[in-house]
């Protein structure tokens, strides 16, 4: 059973703006799901509807089997949210605000758990500090600590790494992996595509309010990702010789560069090509390989559809 099940979800804001159009999505228990999309695509709107902050115009959302509108108490008790905006109380201490969150979500006090969360996020030294005295990255951690205070089964991270330094980012992902290991489902958005490429099990791409793609990451990379081998030629070729027709080749840079697009069906294509070039005495001075990243795939998707 999916931990989150979204069917025919639509959202139009009071301004008349249609932010989400007929979203259908299933998220599996225990996976890391990355929601990608350009600014204004509707990522935050989707997350906020699931969490109860925005009311849907139509459609249905189930979280852990509970309708998020009708049975919000059960649904929300299982969800933790780290919002995109850095919104924290100013005068509360780190410890107090984290304890507050746990209580608000209906759980009895458990200082040992708060203790662990703060230590995991390297906030322990700051626990008695007022939040307004913390740096931006530290505040982000406080928001994560608040979201984890009630031991949620589903965690939403809306751009958790915006404005966060390399080290904290690495810590954060290590923590996300730990959480996943303990069975927590994680849904995240990010504009750093390489993060999604590294972390996610599945990718969803949303653009102009429509979910245009949902795919297993590995399969997506295989399906849409390209591997290319480029040869820098010593002497430019005017045209592609007849003998090289059997390969998917392209002549670029005024005939100075020969590019082969690899095909998983023909694993020896590169080897065969190099042998044939030797036979034809076509000299090359350099070999480069290029593999398209998720970022290339993403940019391709979003720009063709917009």
């Amino acid at each position: 059973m999916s931990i989150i099940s979204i069917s025919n979800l639509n959202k139009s804001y009071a301004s008349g703006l249609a932010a989400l159009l007929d979203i259908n999505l299933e998220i599996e228990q225990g996976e890391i799901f990355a929601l990608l999309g350009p600014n204004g695509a509707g990522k935050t709107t989707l997350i906020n509807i699931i969490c109860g902050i925005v009311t849907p115009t139509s459609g249905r959302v189930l979280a852990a089997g509970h309708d998020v509108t009708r049975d919000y108490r059960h649904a929300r008790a299982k969800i933790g949210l780290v919002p995109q905006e850095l919104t924290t109380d100013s005068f509360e201490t780190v410890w107090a605000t984290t304890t507050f969150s746990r209580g608000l979500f209906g759980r009895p006090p458990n200082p040992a758990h708060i203790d662990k969360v703060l230590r995991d996020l390297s906030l322990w030294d700051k626990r008695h500090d007022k939040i307004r005295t913390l740096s931006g990255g530290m505040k982000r951690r406080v928001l994560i600590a608040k979201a984890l205070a009630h031991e949620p089964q589903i965690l939403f991270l809306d751009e958790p790494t915006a404005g966060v330094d390399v080290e904290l980012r690495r810590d954060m992902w290590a923590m996300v992996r730990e959480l996943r290991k303990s069975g927590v489902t994680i849904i995240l958005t990010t504009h750093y595509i390489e993060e999604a490429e590294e972390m996610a099990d599945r990718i969803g791409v949303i653009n102009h309010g429509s979910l245009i793609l949902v795919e297993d990451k590995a399969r997506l990379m295989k399906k849409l990702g390209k591997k290319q081998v480029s040869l820098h030629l010593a002497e430019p070729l005017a045209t592609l010789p007849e003998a090289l027709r059997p390969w998917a080749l392209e002549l670029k840079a005024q005939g100075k560069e020969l590019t082969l697009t690899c095909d998983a069906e023909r694993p020896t294509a590169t080897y065969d090509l190099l042998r044939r070039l030797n036979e034809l005495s076509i000299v090359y001075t350099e070999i480069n390989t290029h593999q398209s990243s998720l970022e290339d795939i993403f940019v391709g998707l979003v720009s063709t559809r917009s």
Partner: protein
Amino acid sequence: MNFEVSRFNRHGVWAIYRFEIARAARTLVQSLLTPVLTTSLYFIVFGAAIGSRMQSTSGVQYGAFIVPGLIMLTLFTESMSNASFGIYFPKFTGTIYELLSAPISPAEIILGYVGAAASKSIILGLIILATASLFTPLTILHPLIMLAFLVLTAATFSLFGFILGIWATGWEQLSFVPMLILTPLTFLGGAFYPINILPPIWRSFSLFNPIVYLISGFRWSFYGIADVSVATSATVMLGAFALCVGTVSWIFRTGYRLKN
């Protein structure tokens, strides 16, 4: 990781209540000293200076006569400002996202915020009562009814403040209602005089002012004297309370000014 989700989120209510009380505790001196000082000034000006020239009303000295009105005045303004600020501030800073995403019902949220605001103003009311007793001899004929009126008024005006805090879209609106509506109504509501000393036309006007009923009922619990019958006062109080409860539940049902 499975746990029972109970039908009443008492931990959530308690978390809000504690948060709100802690907010007042941070400014303890200011939140206690200001009303006490204001009340003392009223006593010095109205009770001692002017009161000595005023004839007593139905055997109650003027200084003692104004005590219930002064307590009510503080109750109105403190309940309203506390509750309106309590809910407006998270809306303003954005921290309300957490409240909206928590497994807590509207009734529980109100219980937390309004409960805390009412508690604070009830404590203040009692402190003012104690302060007043230093200036003038007090009698309380019906202490239980006095307490009931105190609690009901604090709860009603805290609810009213809560509604104001949700409705307000700017800081100026937050002080607009208390300043422009509540203060005049209170001053014209018989806090400092019995309304039967007014000319008949103004007296009739006063009867449209709900504050008259609240102050009159509260004063009755002290001295047994009233502008209108206690039963009427109690009815108006309960009616105002019910009206606020109704409005608040409508706000949460529709998400008015809380959700997009």
